[in-house]
């Protein structure tokens, strides 16, 4: 169920009740006050400074699942393999496996087992998230050191390692949002509408 479709189904924020038993674990109904009952917020001195388009563009690094915000540039798994070997393999292993930090490849089919292996290929629902995270936070010792093309290439390589795209597939602002991740439908949103 898409977030948008879910949003049309209900006009109020709700949380799925997991258990109706008396000993209810953490998640429960947290239905808030309705918008109409909320008092007006306290008034401030209106000291906010209008932000310019350039200022916003410099800070707005987030990429939506529809690809909104993806920059120009492109990369292929083959290009990404060499970037990965230099910038990523030390922590994440030669092919996304057996590194000292998060495993990035494999694990498909394990989520319902007693020992689920959560990787980009087995767990992550959106390919855009890979690009977003690589560009904002990786490599760990030097975030923001990759070019956008490098970030596309590394993303492409990780998708290829997981068998999701071919070795020569080009990832860019158009193709990346179209990648269907294996676990795309593996999540149940407890909150289906923001307001």
């Amino acid at each position, binding site marked *: 169920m898409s977030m*948008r479709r879910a*949003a049309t189904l209900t006009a109020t*924020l709700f*949380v*799925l009740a*997991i*258990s109706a038993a008396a*000993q*209810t*674990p*953490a*998640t*429960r109904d947290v239905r*808030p006050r309705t*918008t109409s009952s*909320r008092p007006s*917020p*306290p008034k*401030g*001195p209106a*000291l*906010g*400074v*209008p*932000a310019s388009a350039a200022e*916003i563009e410099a*800070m*707005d*690094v*987030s*990429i*939506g*699942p529809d690809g909104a915000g993806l920059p120009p540039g492109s990369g292929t798994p083959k290009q990404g393999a060499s970037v990965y070997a230099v910038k990523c393999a*030390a922590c994440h292993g030669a092919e996304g496996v057996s590194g*000292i*930090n998060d495993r990035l490849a494999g694990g498909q089919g394990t*989520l*319902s087992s007693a020992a*689920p292996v*959560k990787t980009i290929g087995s*767990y*992550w*629902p*959106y390919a855009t*998230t890979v690009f*977003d*995270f690589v560009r*904002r*936070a990786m490599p*760990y010792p030097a*975030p923001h050191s990759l070019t956008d093309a490098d970030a596309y290439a590394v993303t492409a390589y990780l998708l290829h390692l997981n068998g999701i795209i071919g070795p020569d597939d080009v990832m860019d602002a158009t193709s990346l949002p179209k990648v269907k991740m294996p676990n795309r439908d*593996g*999540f*149940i*949103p*407890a*909150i289906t*509408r*923001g*307001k």
Partner: protein
Amino acid sequence: MPKVDAHDLEPVAGNGLLSRRVFLTTGVAGMALLRALPIAAQQNVPAWMRAPGAPLRPYGERSPREATVQRIVGSMPGTDGSGSSRTPLEFLEGMITPNSLHFERNHSGVPDIPPEQHRLLIHGLVRQPLTFDLAALSRYPLISRIHFVECSGNSAPLYAAQPAPGGAGALHGLVSCAEWTGVPLSTLLDEAGVRPDGKWVLAEGADAAAMSRSIPLEKALDDALIAIYQNGERLRPENGYPMRLLLPGWEGNTNVKWLRRLKVTADPVMTKDETSKYTDSMPGGKAMQFTFPMGVKSVITSPSGGLKMQGAGLYQISGIAWSGAGRIRRVDVSADGGKTWAPAALSGPVLPKALTRFRLPWQWNGGAAVLMSRAVDETGAVQPTRGAFIAARGASHRYHCNAIQSWAVLPAGEVRNVYA
């Protein structure tokens, strides 16, 4: 001086639990009874009374004799800044966590941010994108609230098949409580003017991970704060200096530190930390997402794992309880592994979405005992047993564990984590 009523010293539940009225009504006499240790008659004036003490100083430090009380630090391999440090709950009392011992969960270290160079940008689906600096926010009408912050990965050791070693801090120390002072986020969003199609707010930090989470607009307009003070002083660097998001009762990760950007959006951005992490695997392989509120929970901090009993006699069971849904209504304590329970005294003020201290006297007979606490919040939600919790969520859930903690007290005086 009031006397202890003999009736109050009669057990109210199995294995030595006494009425909470011993604390509620007997006051000084009751406490004197509990501290009936021999007082060595001091014939000579001690050294620290024979000469003036240390000079005045501009910034205080705790007694060096308390220096062993430390956060419990654990970082990801190959890093010293990605990971967590846990509050040593077993060495603290009351409901407020000292700022130096407030837990940390950082994803790429603690940034050193000059406040005059830091801006909070509010943009996206708003009428007028705006930036605010610390000086500007400090001029807004401030409000103060006492709230806990709890990492949603807190207490995850209880998912393990066998009881993990460790004390209250090591197992449950990813929760802390402070008085937070700041600007209601609703005031700032009102100033920017949220458009009708705005439903979510992406919050992003200025750390090297630019950690980001999507927050429902409803919460942002409800009780969210842009906090700039913590227990009366400016935020500590590891807690978001110069400004952080505070979402009372919601999983710690959404309380984005070093807040630099709020983008109003129609849908969640689906960041790394709301998809690959902080999602809760259910039996069958699907995962719950956007499970924001922290459940009702309590843990006994004394006696607790790693502490040592000092011989049979009268003790005070003390612990903390909290709920992301509101106030704690009651806490029951058991000394016999859950067979019988007695209500603990709640130390006021009992505040919504804040730690509440509970206490109950206990006559330890020197034999084996299993101590447990079970919290109930004002919505009626009851803290589940570990067995019930695992049965409902599965053992791969990883986050949001609010199961009952059991401490075994051994005849030799050791206290350790057990599954009961």
